[in-house]
């Protein structure tokens, strides 16, 4: 029996472990320095906001691990010796392995700002960050968040739930505008302000000032303005958590370099999830994929490979989702901030200013390339299938009702959308009625 050791009990490590267990009888150990059990990192905000307690964020009950013979070890791995196939923990203890999976996730970026290591200055990535946020946001009168991405806006929502006024410094001219096209980005700017966040666009952090106890007391922006605050959230992205691998002989760049089988340059050592960096680029995808879904998929694939069925990581069509305060966002396929030269663009926004749809399609073939939907829900199966079948934008609009995933009784907007599309593009797309027959075909893969 081989001993498979997985460092990291996040979605990637745990998915790998679960699927290895489904397929084999090998001994499995999962190591983490963060928490005893797997919990959902994406739900950190809801613990702080009082929607859930930590225990609710654990997808499996505590008995699950023993029942499935997945050994859990709470420890920090300080050193990996790939020659002797041994891990050394902080504290000196060691553990041999036959196969090693590195699923060590990310850490928050710090860009060398003066004052970035003061007390009450932190990112939001792990459970310890949450505890520290709990400590440092007690009885404060203002918080400043630096970095306008997904974690930044979550942090703003968290702080507001405790009635803490927030100033939000965003480098871009509009929220997350390096990813979102102008219309959507503008919509979220408005929504952030509707929640009374002091949103500062095109503003950079220059330094963080300390009080006499070494705790942040204010930030200074690049315009020289000093904003008094007692907490600073640094949310300018994340990068792979790989510091402990130095000297191990495992090749790294920004992340741990892997081939399409998720294998590193060292035999029997693999990497998955946020910390893995692909040597070869795969289509439009980034070499570092730092989202929940890709971590899960890499785990599924890696389990196959480890169980002697070498399998390449071949993700299907890109999808993602998020929620900006009260506005839900889903995306399928590729929607770039600015359309590429070969792409046509369509944007519809509801008069409420909180619902929108964007479509991108190929100028020549009319093939749909991507969709962004805000404030209403679309069926993943529909778009996944339509991309595979290379459907045109006209086909997709015709069948939009099949893709609507809003709850019953919701007002639907397909008619308005199609009318605007026809008017702008001189087409005669006419909507089809929702058909369960077609929906079932979409779902059966």
């Amino acid at each position: 029996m081989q001993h498979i050791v997985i460092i990291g009990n996040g979605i990637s490590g745990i998915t790998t472990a679960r699927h290895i267990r489904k397929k084999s009888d090998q001994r499995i150990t999962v190591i983490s320095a963060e928490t005893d059990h797997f919990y959902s990192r994406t739900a950190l905000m809801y613990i702080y906001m009082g929607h859930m307690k930590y225990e609710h964020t654990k997808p499996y009950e505590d008995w699950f691990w023993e029942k499935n013979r997945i050994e859990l070890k709470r420890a920090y791995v300080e050193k990996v010796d790939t020659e002797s196939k041994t891990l050394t923990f902080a504290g000196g203890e060691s553990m041999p392995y036959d196969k090693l999976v590195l699923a060590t996730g990310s850490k928050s970026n710090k860009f060398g700002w003066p004052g970035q290591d003061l007390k009450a200055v932190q990112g939001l990535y792990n459970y310890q960050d949450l505890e520290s946020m709990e400590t440092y946001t007690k009885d404060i009168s203002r918080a400043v968040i630096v970095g306008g991405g997904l974690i930044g806006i979550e942090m703003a929502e968290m702080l507001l739930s405790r009635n803490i006024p927030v100033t939000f410094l965003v480098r871009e001219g509009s929220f997350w505008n390096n990813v979102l096209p102008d219309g959507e980005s503008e919509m979220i700017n408005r929504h952030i302000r509707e929640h009374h966040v002091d949103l500062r666009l095109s503003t950079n952090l220059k330094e963080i000032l300390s009080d006499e106890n070494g705790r942040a007391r204010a930030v200074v922006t690049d315009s020289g303005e000093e904003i008094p605050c007692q907490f600073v959230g640094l949310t300018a992205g994340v990068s792979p958590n790989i510091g402990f691998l130095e000297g191990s002989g495992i090749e790294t760049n920004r992340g741990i370099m892997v081939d399409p089988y998720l294998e590193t340059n060292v035999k029997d050592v693999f990497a998955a999830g946020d910390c893995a960096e692909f040597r070869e680029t795969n289509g439009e995808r980034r070499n570092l994929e730092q989202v929940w879904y890709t971590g899960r998929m890499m785990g599924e694939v890696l389990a196959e490979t480890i169980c002697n069925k070498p399998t390449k990581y071949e993700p299907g069509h890109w999808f993602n989702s998020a929620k900006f305060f009260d506005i839900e966002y889903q995306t399928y396929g590729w929607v770039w901030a600015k359309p590429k030269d070969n792409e046509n663009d369509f944007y519809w926004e509801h008069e409420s200013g909180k619902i929108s749809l964007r479509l991108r399609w190929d100028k020549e073939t009319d093939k749909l390339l991507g969709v962004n939907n805000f404030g209403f829900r679309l069926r993943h199966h529909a778009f996944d299938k339509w991309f595979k079948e290379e459907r045109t934008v006209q086909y997709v609009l015709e069948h939009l009702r099949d893709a609507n995933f809003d709850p019953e009784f919701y007002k639907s907007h397909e008619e308005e959308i199609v009318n605007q599309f026809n008017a702008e593009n001189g087409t005669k797309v006419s909507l089809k009625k929702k058909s369960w027959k077609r929906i079932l075909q979409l779902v059966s893969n």
Partner: protein
Amino acid sequence: MSSVDPSLSIANPDLKDADVVQKAGLALAGLGVLVLFLSWGGVAIPPSIGLPIALLGILVGTVIYSARLYLNQPEGIKNNGVWFRSLTSRGVLGWVAGIVLTGFYVLLYWFPEYIGFKASGNEGFVALFDPLSMFFKGKPASQWFLYGTLYTLCITALGVKFLFKYRHNRYQFVRTLVVIASQLFLAYLIPEILAGLNYNDVTTASGEYLGYFNTDLKNSWPLDYDFFYDWQLNAFQEPSYQPVGTLYLIIGIAMFLVVTPIITYYVGKRWYCSWVCGCGGLAETAGDPFRHLSSKKLSAWRLERWLIHSVMVFVFVMTAATIYGYFWNTGEVFGLNIYKTFQQPYGFLIGATFSGVIGVGFYPMLGNRVWCRFGCPMAGYMGIIQRFKSRFRITTNGGQCISCGNCSTYCEQGIDVRSYAQKGQNIVRASCVGCGVCSAVCPRGVLNLENGPEQGRTDLPPIIIGNESIKVSN
């Protein structure tokens, strides 16, 4: 982890932030509740003044308070601080509320004289409701009239609060309008009016009592377990109640034999449990702040299946014995006394203790659906249909689930929705009451309550979509 200090405020963790209007609303509702307690305590408040103050105070006060609270914020999910508040996280206030509620039910069922119900003439709490009862049907209130009135008031006032809270969600909005209307008309006004028109619950001028039958159309057997008791069957047939009595008898039988299976086939048991049922109505409105307290453990699910099916067997056996006794005109079956062996234990254990005392009294401890989940034989009956022969399912949206756990946490029926969603599997569960809250709280748009073809409804997809690496099913 150390969390925020539990707040002792009942309604809002941040009462300090409540504005004047909100405070006025709360004060008005508080005044109404105070009048109820004072009259219970024997303070002589003239009912003709006290009753309107109590009822309107609670209704109007709650509406003002919640309108102001929710309309002041952008629409969206409002679960901030649920686990920090004493009332909603099994804190001191939760326990106080639980004990008061439980105590009230114990008195209501077994010691009504302590809330003022006296054959010789009501006092205190019950007497407060005399004017309204006189208005409807020309006789003094009973403890059940008091209970029905307060029950309807709770569903209406807190239902309106729910409407404000979920105004962004049309499923919740429509559903809650129906919940309120069902209680107000079907369960309360129509029965009281029928009694007022002498179609039910009549005592003749010569002092003869003609009997009482259940006139809440939607309160179907087996939830209404005494439907076939002889006093009820006799009342249905009482000549002076016709044609209403016979109509209710026929509709009552059609409800569980025909209406229930057909509608449940098309839309799931939700049409009943979270749209029209009285128990469900209270759970969805007054019980809404407690829905997250239901246990999601696998062990709770095991217990649930044992309990609910045992109650179903119990009600079935009890009813069979009852019907046998009625037609063969005997008080015994196999030498067992029907009342003592079947009806009395069922009424005491299930009818009163389980559905009433525990079902509502334990909201702040075990969540708002203890009865519906572990006990209700009607829910059990429809659950079997929903699980095996129905078009209803909760569809999951491909690979979009981030396993956050909001859905499971806020499922009042303790279903571990996430365990399905993260596998991309539809949720087809006997116990789902279709409240739609899992779908509402999901931050990634993963869950949708749908009625569609039965084909493939419960299939586990071979692999969650989005991953092309693995094509074989496993």
